[in-house]
């Protein structure tokens, strides 16, 4: 029984770890502002698909790990992630019915909210950066959302077998 559980959750955990690796992998300087928020995209997908198992709590833990990996204030990514994932989990039934285009628009709004919270905390603390660093990830993340969801659908079928 427990082995089945492990097998079910393993692909999901692996996808989150891969997203974390993509989030800290080095990019050339011109590509840095356009690094998509891989972790947010992955967690949004899993929160819509399995809102009971992967929602606010796991988002918060992953957020803390992301904070340490990126050297931001402890709790910054955790706060933003758990808020975004809360919305995704709360309205997962509606989101599941959305056609691809509408869901992409929703993801755009969620990513924008995520970046806004980061922007807001940075503002309070006194860190300022060029605006492109806030909009770049939102745009690239939205464009990559269909690809991410297709990959994760494959992983989900493996997970649920």
């Amino acid at each position: 029984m427990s082995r089945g559980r492990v097998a079910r959750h393993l692909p999901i955990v692996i996808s989150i770890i891969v997203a974390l690796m993509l989030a800290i992998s080095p990019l050339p300087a011109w590509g840095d502002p356009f690094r998509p928020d891989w972790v947010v995209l992955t967690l949004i997908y899993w929160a819509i698909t399995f809102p009971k198992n992967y929602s606010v709590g796991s988002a918060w833990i992953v957020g803390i790990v992301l904070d340490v990996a990126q050297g931001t204030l402890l709790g910054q990514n955790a706060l933003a992630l758990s808020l975004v994932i809360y919305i995704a989990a709360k309205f997962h039934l509606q989101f599941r019915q959305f056609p691809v285009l509408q869901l992409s628009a929703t993801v755009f709004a969620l990513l924008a909210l995520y970046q806004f919270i980061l922007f807001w905390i940075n503002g309070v603390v006194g860190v300022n950066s060029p605006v492109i660093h806030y909009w770049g990830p939102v745009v690239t993340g939205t464009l990559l959302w269909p690809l991410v969801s297709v990959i994760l659908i494959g992983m989900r079928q493996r997970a649920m077998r």
Partner: protein
Amino acid sequence: MAATKSDKYRSPYSPALGLRLLLLAGLSVSLLVIDHRDNHLDTARKAIGATVYPLRILVDMPVSAWRWINATTASRNELQLENSRLNAERLLTQARLQRYSALEAENARLRAMLDARERVRDQVRVAEILSVSANPFRHVLVVDKGTNDGVYEGQAIVDAVGVVGQVIQAGVLSSQCLLISDPGHDLPVEVNRNGLRTIARGTGEFDRLDLPFLPNNADIRPGDLLVTSGLGGAFPAGYPVAVVNVVTRVPQEPFATVTAKPSASLNQVREVMLIWSSEDVSDVEADLNDGVPASDPETVEDGDLAAEPAAEPEDTDDE
């Protein structure tokens, strides 16, 4: 959306979702406040950082594998070419080094005459960069040396041509370093030509530093080399930092707009050097710098203002 598959998850979100969000948000905010106010969370950071370390190794693996393949499959011809090039370079640097050691001896003698303590040679150790600046809002890099190797927080980091940054968090096996281009990084510098002291502030761009506190009549011009003044206590004195490239003076404004380009290529380095220096070096430097009059820039002016670090000992020699 294949909703049929997830029938057993059809039951809506768990009832306490809002409550959990409220709790976790409160926890995050208090973490944020504590982390921003003071450094009580360093042990927690270190513990979580240890779990992230394998991830960093994994991310670095393709790059190091590529370098390994490149190194092992390099052709004999390439190796010979590289060998001859390195030999030529070695000869050049040795010639330069001879002059340098003569200068160093002379410097030590002059210092002894000035009754200052002899400057202790800085200890240097090479560290490899594991990852660079995952977060665009903070210019942070991670190096593969930690407290096991004697790294401490606040330690200065340089590369072959200039200052790179300082250690902000020393883990056991790896440590995080803040680059001088980070928007939150201020570095006390002085103009090598005339000893004018000021602060170089990061801008969030790798190739630009701001010097916001220079009055309009300050004696500074494009091409001036900025070196660390050692007055902040964190950095040893005399390391090249940046070269001034733009000076704009608007008569109505109290301060001139001065920007400089860092000497170190902050987004291209692969290895950096950690510096261990004795604390009292900076005290000596401070005393000496106060003694240097900033009033004779004319004498140095016609000397070469070549904006390269190699010119630094020559300038001191001229004076």
